[in-house]
């Protein structure tokens, strides 16, 4: 299998990973209900986004038969994910992670080993993002905020938004149209560039890419750099780019 020795990024069936796969990394795309997580993942994923059904408690799970799994708790949630093959054998996975407090038990598991999180915020309902911001900060994952603008979003200044969301000065905040591939890639880049900046400022252990090494300090590691400050200012100008 994995029969695509060419430059093709996936195997012939589009699902099995090519032999050239070397490193797999993940970023969480987090946010409240309906904010655009699936849309963003879909706009950058090379596969149709897949999902797993997850139980909110792993206790008393029994592998039954092909019909699946029986368990005492009935609460399940669908976690969708997409995949992007980058150059040089790196494959990036994006996990759409719901932000409600009741998904806390799943968070640690999904966040394990993640590079960071992109937190989507709908500026029409900023309060809905407080839970997810709390969970991200608690997990110690470095994050960036992407503001999705909708036709009826009203305009806020960068300062108003940063204040409402109570963001640390170094946390990137960008405007994003999750339906647009380039815009979604830019939002991911704002996060990754900030991870790099944090790492430079913080020494080799600064980012969460090493499993088990998601440091407490990572949330504070985002010291403001010139480049970053520029990116935030230009990226976050709350233009009403709604169509």
């Amino acid at each position, binding site marked *: *299998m*994995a029969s695509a020795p060419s430059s093709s990024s996936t*195997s012939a069936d589009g*699902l*099995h*990973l090519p*032999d050239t*796969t*070397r*490193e*797999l*990394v*993940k970023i969480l795309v987090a946010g409240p209900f309906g904010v655009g997580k699936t849309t963003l993942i879909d706009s950058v994923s090379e596969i149709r986004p*897949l*999902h*797993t*059904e997850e*139980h909110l408690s*792993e*206790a*008393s*799970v*029994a*592998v*039954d*038969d*092909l019909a*699946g*799994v029986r368990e005492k708790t009935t609460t399940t949630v669908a976690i969708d994910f997409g*995949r*992007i093959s*980058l*150059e*040089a054998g*790196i494959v*990036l*996975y994006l*996990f759409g992670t719901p932000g409600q407090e009741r998904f806390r038990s799943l968070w640690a*598991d*999904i966040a*394990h*080993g993640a*590079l960071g999180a992109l937190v989507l915020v709908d500026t029409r309902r900023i309060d809905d993002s407080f839970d997810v911001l709390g969970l991200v900060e608690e997990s110690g994952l470095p994050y960036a905020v992407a503001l999705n603008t909708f036709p009826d979003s009203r305009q806020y200044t960068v300062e108003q938004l940063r204040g409402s969301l109570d963001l640390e000065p170094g946390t990137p905040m960008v405007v994003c149209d999750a339906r647009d*591939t*380039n815009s979604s*890639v*830019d939002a*991911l*880049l704002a996060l*990754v*560039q900030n*991870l*790099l900046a944090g*790492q430079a400022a913080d020494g*080799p*252990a600064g*980012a969460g*890419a*090493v*499993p088990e090494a998601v440091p407490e300090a990572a949330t504070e590691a985002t010291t403001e750099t010139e480049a970053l400050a520029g990116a935030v200012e230009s990226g976050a100008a709350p233009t009403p780019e709604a169509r």
Partner: protein
Amino acid sequence: MTGRRSGRPLVPAYLSTGGVARPRHTELERLSLLTGGAGPAPDGLPAARHALYDVLDGGTLTLVEAAALLELPVSAVRVLAAELAEQGLVSLRPPVPPAALPASDLLKRVADGLRALKQ
């Protein structure tokens, strides 16, 4: 998806501890790579393990992709993969080979890779 019915293999105790104790050798995470053996599944393989073996089809999938394709929770596929690995039918690999650490170079390559995606 084929496979015979079997007695219900109960999930080993380590799963009911919420994943604190993990299978030996490898720590299976969502992005752990599972590579299936070539050829048909051996006789007598329990149905769920059989299904995982079949979906790998001799190739490589991440644990989470196998779970999605089988419509099973990740927690269940963790167990199945560990069992198949124990039987020597599946090989396991961590998402990032230890040689690829430290992460600074990896992050830089992720950034470069993302930039290259833009049209």
